[in-house]
């Protein structure tokens, strides 16, 4: 990372310096803050500001791993955390592959993570722009109410050190606005949302967030429950992002090693339509989750996972890489100081196609544009591949948008859906998510309604 956060690094270094013979130690120290503003009916509903800090310590000895954390940087508490982690080591099963990351010489690609303008942005202006977002949203269509308009920002500083020679620190900040809407028509109410992200509030596109929130809600007014049938779906960019994110667990090297991925024996096979190329690239500064290091402190890097539909690579942390006799792809993930590293994709991106959403819609004789899905956590199983979600959107017939539809599901399997991809849109949207989005056309999906 570009900036050194000296005091956090010093804390991490002090922990690591206490390692005994045959003991590996990793200390992850972080500090952060956030602001949350909510506006309702022109007034400030809440303003929350907060700071938090903490340390997570991993100890490995004789192939056994122990971990402990505390939400404080108080020296006595840190000593207790180290003692707890050491005690926890004794209960692990020896694992020849257990261990910390070792510096691999891959260079970090510098990016900008800290925005001075955001860091100094006045609170009253944050409140004012959130009020403006609510006002803009209300001004588009008089059937629309605003449920809440939100401004959120956060900053974080982190330092990691290990006995194996990892020593990294840095800081970053980010902000976004969001608005959720209700559209009323006699007895019926439908919902919508819109948002905008930027390095600083100056980059927000409030007009776009307002328009999308208003249109998403009003488009669904009068929606009917469609008949059940097999059909072609066009996923909106926001839905595609959610679909792509699900694939992360199937490409996760640890899941592959432990027999939890249906891709386990498929390396080199045609697993998706030839139009489908999926990369994980946290070095792309356009990605919302762009980073220069992974959760173990190794350089983040670009990995091509599926190329022209052929399975090329799984993502790895140092642990999963050792288990599979390969090298880390820089894909250790970390949920802050309270968690030890896992494995996952960091910033998933599809290579875009050439057509706009309008052109894709025009190419579909009979189908449905999916605007929203629900129940991804309850109806999608990435181990078996079963895929079933609630959905709402618009029917498409003879290349034009027709009636709005809701209260139906779309279902297939992940394995089939990848092979049934018909087209990929050019309409890339860099969403606040681990995966970007664009329109995606998939045929032979079952729509269940009446």
């Amino acid at each position, binding site marked *: 990372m570009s900036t050194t956060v000296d005091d956090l690094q010093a804390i991490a270094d002090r922990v690591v310096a206490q390692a005994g013979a045959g003991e590996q130690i990793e200390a992850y120290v972080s500090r952060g803050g956030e602001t949350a503003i909510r506006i309702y009916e022109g*007034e*400030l*509903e*809440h*303003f*929350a*500001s*907060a*700071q*938090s*800090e903490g340390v997570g310590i991993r100890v490995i000895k004789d192939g056994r*791993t*122990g*971990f*402990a*954390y*505390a*939400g*404080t940087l108080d020296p006595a508490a840190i000593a*207790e*955390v180290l003692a*707890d*982690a050491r005690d*926890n080591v004794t*209960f*692990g*099963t020896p*694992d020849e592959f257990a261990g910390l990351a070792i510096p691999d010489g891959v260079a970090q690609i510098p990016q900008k993570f800290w925005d001075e303008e955001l860091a100094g942005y006045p609170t009253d202006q944050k409140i004012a722009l959130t009020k403006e977002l609510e006002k803009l949203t209300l001004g588009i269509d008089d059937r629309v*109410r605003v449920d*809440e308009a939100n401004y959120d920002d956060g900053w974080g500083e982190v330092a990691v050190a290990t006995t194996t020679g990892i020593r990294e620190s840095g800081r970053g900040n980010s902000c976004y606005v969001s608005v959720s809407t*209700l559209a009323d028509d006699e007895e*019926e*109410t*439908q*919902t919508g949302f819109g948002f905008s992200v930027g390095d600083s509030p100056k980059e927000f596109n409030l007009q776009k967030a307002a328009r999308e929130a208003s249109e998403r809600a009003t488009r669904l007014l009068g929606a009917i429950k469609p008949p*059940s049938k097999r059909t072609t779906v066009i996923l909106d960019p926001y839905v595609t992002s959610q679909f792509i994110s699900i694939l992360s667990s199937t490409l996760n090297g640890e899941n592959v090693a432990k*027999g*939890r991925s249906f891709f386990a024996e498929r390396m080199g096979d045609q697993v998706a339509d030839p139009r489908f190329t999926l990369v994980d690239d946290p070095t792309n500064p356009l990605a919302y989750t762009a980073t220069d290091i992974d959760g173990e402190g190794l350089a983040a890097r670009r990995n091509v996972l599926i190329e022209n539909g052929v399975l090329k690579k799984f993502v790895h942390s140092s642990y999963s890489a050792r288990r599979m006799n390969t090298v880390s792809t820089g894909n250790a993930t970390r949920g802050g100081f*309270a968690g*030890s590293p896992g494995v996952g994709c960091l910033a998933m991106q599809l290579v875009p196609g050439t057509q706009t959403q309008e052109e894709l819609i025009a190419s579909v004789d009979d189908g449905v544009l999916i605007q929203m899905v*629900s*129940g991804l956590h*309850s*109806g999608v*199983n990435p*181990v*078996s591949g*079963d895929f*079933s*979600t*609630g959905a*709402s959107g618009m029917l498409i017939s003879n290349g034009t948008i027709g009636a709005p539809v*809701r*209260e*139906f*599901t779309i*279902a*297939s399997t992940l394995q089939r859906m990848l092979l049934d991809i018909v087209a990929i849109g050019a309409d890339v949207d860099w969403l606040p998510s681990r995966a970007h989005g664009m329109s995606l056309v998939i045929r032979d999906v079952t729509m*269940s309604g*009446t």
Partner: protein
Amino acid sequence: MSLRTDSPLIEPDVIARVLAKGRSTGAEFSEIYVEDKRSTSAGLDDGKVEQVTSGRDRGAGIRVIAGDTTGFAHTSDLSERGLLAAAEAAAAAAKQGDGGVHTIALQPVFRHPVNTIVQFPDTVAKARKVELLQRADIAARGVHGAIVQVSAGYGDSIKQILIANSDGIFSADEQVRTLMRVSVIANGDAGMQTGYNSLGHTIGFEIFDENDVEELAIRAAQQAITKLQARPAPSGAMQVVIKQGSGGVLFHEACGHGLEADLVGKGSSVYRGKMGELVASPLVTVIDDGTMAGEWGAIGVDDEGHASQKNTLIENGILTDYMWDYIRARKEGRKQSGNGRRQSYADLPMVRMTNTFVTNGSENPDDIIRATDHGVYIAKLGGGQVDTASGDFVFGMVEAYLIEKGEITEPLREGNLIGNGPQVLKDIDLMGNDFAMGGPGTCGKDGQGVPVGDGCPTLRVKSMTIGGTAA
């Protein structure tokens, strides 16, 4: 070791000064929520105990309310200086007119324990916790040669909380939770299938005296093995029979969220303006009960210091009440209902469910199946999701079977079901007499997760849409 005494986390005179600081900019209400949580977790995967984790989360959240504006700040610094700084930040956000000096008179500490803890988990050796995981692994793998992977998790936590506010409320609670979960993968000719089972109660390590770890694991393994033979779930509307226990998720989604007064107050619930009306089949009585000893959503006091209580929301199909927190109850000039909850000291409280369930009807569960000519029997529900404004909701079926001519026949693959809350509640046409609570759940709302329980007897919905792929 956790505190097992009546001594508060922060001295009352410090609390009084912090609350007074909170009102120093003219706010009419200030509140402090202090949390000290110690947790232990252990995970086994791929036959190995991968890691034992110890955690400590400690801090305070200060809330200040002036008119319709809430200011909130939290800190992990529990010194008086740290708390006063947070109170000042919260007060600055909720400024209203002149400040003035306030004296806060706190009542004696109020406790309302609903759970009895026999063996506090922090008095149990970690080796005994790890051993549970190894027993689960062996038991699950012993079910069938097709079981190819097992992961098991153990977790316990002891959370001390203290809530005080400028109205004089001064409450404390000790919340103990012990949990175990097992996930299993079976591999067959048609690919892999998963099985899952969990056990969690607001009690201590005695949970394992009353529940068998081997049986928990065997049930998860059997679920995965059964699903190896599963055919694709049907697509379209049909009769649905939902088994006792986890079926309570249906009501959590179909009406629970929609009866939260914050959503009702903003007009984003399909149940707004329906008080006193028939909103469900007369067979349906829905209760939210935070006092249900041992259940996952049981709490002594809620996170605003109010005693947990049992609230009837729908009685014989008629909407009788919503669920309330401080802000919404104050606005309506009524009492709170013990439903003001938050994920941690770093979060604002809002209206949340506790243990939500439907009471018994009169039907024998076997008769409900026999009375169903063609439908789906859902033995275990997964999670769900709802759009409270339209009422449309989904929930997942993780273990389901076809019903043909009154008999349970073939197992089905996973999928979601979709329905509209008010319609589904009216379409319940048979209610069983075998009420049970389901497993431990985590309910998500506005980015915060809180532990909840759900329950119901076996029941039938005369029509719901199954989101499968089979014609």
